[in-house]
């Protein structure tokens, strides 16, 4: 049952009879949707038929697999800050969305997925292409709903958009039976949803906790800020920067938060977690006040919890009440939208510089540079490293590109070393770690930010999981730079097997087709290099090429990503080699 505000009387007068499919198009236009990623099929045909009349206003990108469609929508949402929209048919079309839904759920990405469903009278009869999508998708959606009558559609769609984008964003799925898409009904206009009585997107800010947090910060000698994607989801980058600059506190990021503060900001001390920077990890266990902003203390960030920041008082700013105390016991919980809470906090904190404390991070940074970063980014002999590829890319883009990464060693290297001047520039599958994410996500990211250069950094393994989306690039003509870092291994698993399984390389040796030839088959220009002298020129060629380009760089087969916090260890037990 849906509950919502009453329709405005003037809208009721202007009723007209339309199909459910057309009502969806009108709703999408009202929600300012400009791009849809999708794949047609039997049960969603009436929606596609309605789309035919709106194809000029609603740009539809035909993907090659529904998983590609939903990852593209994620890329679109992450680069633009808008809701990503996906169309898929019933049964296999819908089940192919599940990985993307789980990914969007754990990474809080706003999506509205519309799936076709068999006729309402066939539900539960094992009809052709019938799957119980509502039950299957429930654990991986913020909300889902099955529409079986056309007249429910405007309200359901309005709720879907409101829920997807408000509060802590997330994926929403509407499963629409074929009869509801075909049915004609009196359309009384589309009213965007602004309130649902059972849903409170933002908890009320409690000022006494803002005051308590400010007092802790003002009395702290070694305060340390950890920020996550919440800063970007709340569009609070400016508020965050103001807070950091007034308080003078060193700040480190989770991979989902990368770029909310520019890489070269003097108080940006680097990346947290398993493959994060040396200083932020070690000093987590030395700070006296830990201020977590829009992050959720993932196990890849905290390492062993019972040895995580035990000495520190913890302030946690989050919009989602269930995140408070979930993993780390909070001293002062600051519930609310950080767009509201950060300025309140900034007003109360004293202007400070914490120079000596910041210097400690720099000292650790110097050690890390001397012991491993220099060799990773500026090697003079031996095989190519992943780090030097990213470093050269930084030099050529000057940190203005959107870097989309897949999952594995290259992802950690890309996140560690990519220079990011702007927010919404680092797009990666953080929580779920979905191999095959990068290529389709890069396509979507380009649609979400058409004026920016989009570089997809992908491993040889992950690329083979969704390379069918080269077909989407070919047909749509979207301009995506594909940078494959090929080490001829499933590198991250190989690294673990080397370090923890006595080099028993169990099924990590992966062969690849000739990627340049594959790209050529899709009409996409490409090049493969393996020599250091060719690197800069090849990257330049890729970036200046009109249209998509695939550059495959053969890198060292058995390089490891360091530093590393081994599983089950404390963050301060981080290893440099």
């Amino acid at each position, binding site marked *: 049952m849906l*509950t919502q505000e009453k329709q405005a009387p003037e809208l009721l007068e202007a009723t007209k009879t339309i199909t459910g499919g057309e009502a969806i198009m009108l709703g999408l236009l009202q929600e300012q949707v400009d791009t849809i990623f999708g794949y047609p099929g039997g049960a969603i045909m009436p929606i596609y038929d309605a789309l035919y009349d709106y194809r000029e206003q609603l740009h539809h990108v035909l993907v090659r697999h529904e998983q590609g469609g939903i990852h593209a929508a994620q890329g679109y949402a992450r680069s633009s800050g808008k809701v990503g929209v996906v169309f898929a048919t019933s049964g296999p079309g819908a089940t192919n969305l599940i990985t993307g839904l789980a990914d969007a759920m754990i990474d809080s990405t706003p999506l509205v997925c519309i799936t076709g469903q068999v006729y309402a009278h066939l539900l539960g009869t094992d009809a052709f292409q019938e799957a119980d999508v509502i039950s299957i998708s429930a654990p991986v959606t913020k909300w889902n709903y099955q529409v079986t009558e056309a007249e429910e559609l405007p309200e359901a769609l309005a709720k879907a958009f409101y829920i997807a984008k408000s509060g802590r964003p997330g994926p929403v799925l509407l499963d629409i039976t074929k009869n509801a898409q075909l049915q004609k009904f009196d359309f009384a206009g589309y009213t965007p949803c602004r309130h649902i*009585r*059972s849903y409170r997107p933002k908890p009320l800010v409690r000022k006494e906790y803002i005051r308590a947090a400010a007092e802790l910060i003002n009395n702290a000698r070694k305060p340390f800020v950890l920020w996550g994607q919440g800063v970007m989801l709340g569009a609070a980058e400016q508020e965050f920067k103001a807070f950091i600059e007034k308080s003078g506190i060193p700040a480190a990021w989770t991979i989902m938060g990368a770029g909310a503060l520019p890489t070269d900001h003097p108080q940006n001390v680097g990346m947290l977690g398993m493959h994060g920077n040396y200083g932020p990890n070690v000093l987590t266990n030395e700070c006296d006040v830990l201020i977590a902003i829009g992050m959720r203390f993932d196990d890849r960030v905290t390492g062993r919890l019972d040895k995580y920041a035990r000495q520190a008082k913890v302030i946690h700013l989050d919009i989602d*009440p269930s995140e408070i105390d979930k993993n780390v016991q909070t001293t002062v919980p600051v519930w609310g939208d950080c767009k509201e809470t950060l300025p309140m906090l900034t007003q109360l904190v004293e202007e400070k510089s914490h120079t000596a404390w910041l210097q400690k991070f720099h000292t650790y940074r110097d050690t890390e540079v001397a012991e491993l970063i220099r060799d990773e980014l500026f090697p003079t002999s031996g095989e190519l490293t992943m780090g030097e590829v990213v470093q050269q890319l930084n030099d050529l883009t000057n940190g203005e590109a959107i870097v989309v990464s897949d999952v594995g060693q290259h992802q950690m290297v890309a996140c560690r070393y990519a220079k990011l001047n702007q927010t919404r520039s680092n797009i990666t599958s953080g929580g779920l770690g979905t191999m095959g994410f990068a290529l389709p996500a890069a396509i979507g990211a380009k649609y979400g930010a058409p004026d920016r250069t989009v570089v997809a950094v992908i491993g040889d393994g992950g690329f083979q999981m969704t390379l069918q989306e080269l077909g989407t690039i070919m047909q749509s003509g979207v301009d995506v730079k594909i940078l494959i870092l090929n080490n001829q291994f499933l590198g991250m698993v190989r690294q673990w097997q080397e370090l923890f399984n006595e080099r028993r390389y169990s099924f990590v040796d992966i062969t690849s087709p000739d990627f340049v030839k594959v790209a050529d088959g899709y009409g996409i220009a490409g090049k493969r290099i393996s020599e250091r002298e060719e690197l800069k020129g090849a990257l330049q060629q890729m970036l200046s090429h009109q249209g998509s380009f695939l550059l495959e760089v053969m890198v060292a087969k058995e390089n490891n990503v360091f530093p590393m916090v081994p599983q089950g260890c404390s963050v301060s037990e981080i290893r440099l080699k």
Partner: protein
Amino acid sequence: MSNPQQIDRQEYNITVYTENHVGLLNRIATIFSRRKMNIESLNTSPSEIEGIHRFNIVINETEEVVGKLVKQIEKQVEVLKAYYHTNQDVIWQEMALYKVPTDVIAEKALVERLLRENGARAVVIRKDYTVFETTGHREETDNLIKVLQPYGLIEFVRSARIAIIKDSEGFNRKLREFERAEPGEGAVENEFLNSRDNVFTM
């Protein structure tokens, strides 16, 4: 070996006020099943307000875990509010039905006394069997099984637990707050923050 977590475990009564939405039961159930937790008892029913459903869930866990579960339940879009209480904080009942052969009951006067002592009453009396009903706490309904077992208990069934919260004022006032576009502090009040004073000292 005794596990300290085991010691802190006790029965908690989770009360959830929800919209009447298809699939919500599944969403609530998976909050437990994804953590491999068993629900001891689950009852859904109407509440004091038309259109608002009430779940009563019983779970044997530590307070820390139950607190986190309740926050996950409340996060569901169609959930208005979720609370948890110990057995001391609620008035609760379970109902049980027992089917026994009528001839045994009729012949043995002792049985009648036992039924009387256990507060059971006959719901149906047929030539072949009689169905008794009793309402009470788990120990009470369990006890009658033991009592009737020697007399040929044919069938037994017990309902889920229903519980009334001792210090609750009901949900009417809160619902009116929720229906406002900008709910006031009364609605978005936060028991968690209120009970924090013992944790947080400046």
